[in-house]
């Protein structure tokens, strides 16, 4: 029988019985995710290759290598967390449906960055080694790995306050910090090249990843709210303070990373500008979690409106239209 126990049911091996839905928002996320389906090879990269040879400075190339060296492995860390840390515990069928869909998307992102890394003439060894060799990337990875490890520790019991607090930390750490702060900072940096009409193929992929991540983030915020509703006792001032500290730690990791990414300014971008954006995004995330903004700083990258916010009309013979969606209602 379908239990009404909420996000966590007693038996994780119970087969999925979807209807009636308990979390219609989760099902809505699944439906939209399907429509957003894309594949890396749809983004042509030959212009990017030309940009790499003819228009990017050595500093810019290096920064792009760091970016790829960060995104590629981190996407797969999300996959692991979804499947190993969250899926065993979250048993509501529509939630699980979304988790596996998201896991597929993260895998798709990994493949997308592989596709870029294997097409652009980057130093592949350096890119693939970034996770170990580049301290600022390694620090971010360690932060995430720790959160997954906390759940995988033997003896985790979700019926205890400690267990639930740990679970909440993981949700916030992945859905809000990694997907909502680390990735957004990376997107902004990548999009700064498109402002100069550079790396348009890579940025088509970024458009798609960003659309996916917006959905993950939205799902994450919904999930966290549902979790807090079902377990109001977790929402203590202590816990909220703990989450705030976690986000602030992440902000400082990201600031360090950006300083290593851009030791010198490049055209239209420098580390402090990007870090201003990180603080702005962090504020937004803290507000979404209901723990109040910290920095109250304005968005220094106003041009992101042009890259992300406004509707886009594509001159069809000149650029890839990313706006078609697949799937349709049945007759």
């Amino acid at each position, binding site marked *: 029988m379908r239990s009404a126990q909420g996000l966590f049911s007693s038996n994780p091996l119970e087969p999925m019985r979807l209807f009636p839905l308990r979390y219609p928002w989760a099902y809505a*996320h699944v439906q939209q995710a399907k429509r957003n389906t894309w594949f890396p090879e749809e983004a042509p990269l030959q212009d990017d290759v030309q940009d790499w040879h003819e228009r990017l400075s050595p500093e810019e190339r290096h920064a792009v290598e760091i970016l790829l060296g960060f995104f590629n492995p981190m996407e797969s860390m999300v996959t692991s967390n979804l499947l190993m840390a969250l899926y065993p515990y979250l048993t509501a069928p529509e939630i699980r449906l979304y988790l596996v869909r998201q896991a597929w998307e993260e895998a798709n992102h990994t493949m997308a960055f592989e596709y870029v890394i294997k097409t652009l003439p980057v130093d592949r060894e350096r890119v693939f080694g970034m996770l170990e060799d580049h301290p600022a990337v390694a620090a971010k990875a360690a932060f995430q790995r720790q959160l997954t490890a906390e759940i995988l520790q033997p003896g985790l019991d979700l019926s205890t306050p400690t267990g639930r607090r740990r679970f909440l930390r993981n949700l916030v750490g992945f859905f809000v910090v990694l997907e909502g702060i680390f990735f957004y900072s990376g997107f902004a940096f990548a999009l700064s090249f498109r402002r100069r009409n550079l790396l348009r193929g890579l940025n088509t992929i970024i458009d798609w990843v960003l659309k996916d991540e917006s959905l993950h983030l939205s799902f994450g915020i919904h999930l966290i709210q549902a979790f807090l509703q079902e377990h109001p006792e977790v929402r203590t001032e202590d816990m909220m303070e703990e989450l705030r500290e976690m986000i602030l730690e992440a902000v400082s990791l990201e600031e360090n990373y950006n300083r290593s990414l851009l030791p010198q300014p490049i055209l239209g971008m420098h580390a402090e500008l990007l870090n201003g954006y990180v603080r702005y995004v962090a504020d937004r995330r803290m507000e979404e979690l209901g723990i109040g903004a910290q920095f109250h700083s304005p968005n220094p990258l106003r041009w992101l409106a042009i890259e992300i916010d406004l509707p886009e009309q594509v001159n069809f013979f000149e650029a890839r239209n990313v706006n078609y969606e697949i799937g349709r209602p*049945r007759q």
Partner: protein
Amino acid sequence: MIAQGVSHGEALLRRWLRMTELPEPLQVQLLAEAQESMLDRLEPFQAIEGLLLIATAHIWEDPSWERAAAALLRQRILLETTGSEDPDYISWFPQYIRTGVEKGALHPDLLRFDLERLARAIDPQRDALLPYIGLATLYDRYLVRDPESRQVLEPPQAMWMRVAMGLALAEADREAWALRFYERISTLRYLPSTPTLFNSGTPHHQLASCYVYEVHDSLDHILDAASAFGMLAKYAGGIGASVTRIRAVGAPVRGINGRSGGLIPFLHFYDALIHSINQGGRRRGTMAAYLEPWHLEVEAFLDLRRNAGDPYQRTPSLDTALWIPDVFMERVLADGDWYLFDPLVAGDLVDRYGEDFRRCYEDYIEQAERGQLPRRAWRKVRARELYRKILAALMETGHPWITFKDSANLRSMLRHAGVIHSLNLCTEVALPTNRDEIAVCNLASVNLVRHLRPDGRLDEAELARTVEIALRGLDNAIDLNLYPDERARRSNLLNRPAGLGLMGFAELMARWGLSFNDPEAAEHADRILEFLSYHAIRASVALARERGPFPRFDGSEWSNGRLPLDTLADVERARGRPVPVDRSCRGDLDWEGLREEVRRGIRNGTVMAIAPTATIALIAGTSPSMDPYFSNLFVRSTLSGRFVEFHPVLVEILRELGLWERVRERLVESQGDVMGIAEIPEPVRRRFPTAFQIRPEALLEITARAQKWVDMGISRNLYFAAHSPAELEGVYLRAWEMGLKATYYCYTMPRMRAEPATVAVNKSAQRPRWVEAVEAELQEGAACALNEACEACQ
């Protein structure tokens, strides 16, 4: 990377800002942001690019930054090309032509002009007419560059003059005509098509926009056509080609006693070919493949643009279009059967239209049912089911475009010259082809809003004059053109087609207080097109008196005293049903007099085609073609970058009402949709729907009323807010009924967008609209949710 002298960098920035003559506060803000971005630490050239980045980043907040960006870019181009922000064209221009010719960038015949006389006519003030997006596009791709160093050689005014000279090369009084062309073009009253702007006056003077050809059913010809397509694409021509004759998969191949792999692998081959040609980075090679929907492989054709599946069965770069005969639409209406044939057994259908096609098609059906055709060579489907599949593919991939074979052929003024086997790349050119003739079309478009008088009305005398000059330019181009293929020269010299179009219709309507939803917009489309058509025909008749009619004039509809409007009756007769289009005329144009003159001769086999003007309208700073504004605030994504655009008339009105500062953030939040912005008075909101808020039927009415007067076609984009196949089914049927020759892109509004970066709309209290929509849907009947679910999960 880092310049040594910091103070030097700052001094340079200040000097640059002063030269723009922008208001002081804007200059101060630009300088402050430049320092914040550490631009003064960059090399001068990069610093200047950085200033532009700052200015363009603000355009969405306030369009006055657009002027700042344009001023900066103009300075940059002038300095790069002439070395001075205020060049003395009288000495500079003749020198430019001479060195340009020496470097091999310009055509040597330009030296035959009286260069000093032309230079004196150059008006530097006209640079100010160009919007930022126009300047950026010119700078990126249109201005002539040094063949070796790739340095830009000409500023915009020199470009206009170069184009004008190229068009006047063969005129007896070449200076006078160059000056006339320059006058019209540099004031943006009309613009020739992109290939003409690229290549006129250069050694590779390929001026035509479109080439249309057909592929025959033999490997020899498939390869031969590929070679022609490659050469045409190299010189900036877009290609349309009928591929219906290519035999279907499984058909016998006699020469090797084997079986054919069919149509799709050859289309994949054309896709790879066209993808490999990027026209020196200025434009991508482009080609549209047209298929008639009775081809046995039509279903595989519908999948060509899907993003999943065997990559060898896909064509990511090739555009696809269906060339639909009336019989198909009739059978959809009647819910009848539809028969698919292998062209190996039914190939002559390609060369038939109207009644003739119907008889022959029905005959093949009989043969099939009687067992007289090989069983593998035909198949029966339900017409409606195929129609739904077509529209589903269109909605999900934007392809195939829906075009109509019979109305294009029955309304052709060149019926005596052969069958039109497909349209061109942009679905507005309708010309006959055969194995020995590649159809060609030269295009130019009149800018309506540059013909507004101070009292807000159209200056018809000026408009008529512009049409006359533009048409002469088009006729000249036919003789001047560098033909990449002999079959193209042959066709073009026999038919001498011209394709005059227009741009700025949406801006004009907005300035007249109308939206496309108002019935008056269709009235205006009708009256304006009648005027343009009348004067285009008149101009071509005048050219015939001076230069003689086109060689194939005898036997053409023109020679029988027929005019485009008369041919609507031919469509009705062939269909046996009325074409519901208003037939009224303005009443102030002497069509009967013109009819008599046409009977005696016309210079051009065709005179009009309404092209999309996707790029030249950006250069001219107005709305493209007869298309509506996509939104009131949106980004246009082109090969040259991403550009913010406002509906200029809305901004003017909001400023006058003192509302601009208050609502601009709301405009970003709403993606340019004003309907929900309560601060804006309702009558104003109603005037500014986004493209998705215009009823598709209203767009069809405007197009049908325009098509009435146009001898070739109209490129018609359609926009759908809902993702409802039923709505699309109705709209495309209606488009056919109203006698349209073609539709073009089908835009559907994405349900979901990425989380906005600059406006806060995703706060925990607010739920994304699409989540609420799905939740509401589920509440209505949770049990049947699966039936409502999309096909992908079945």
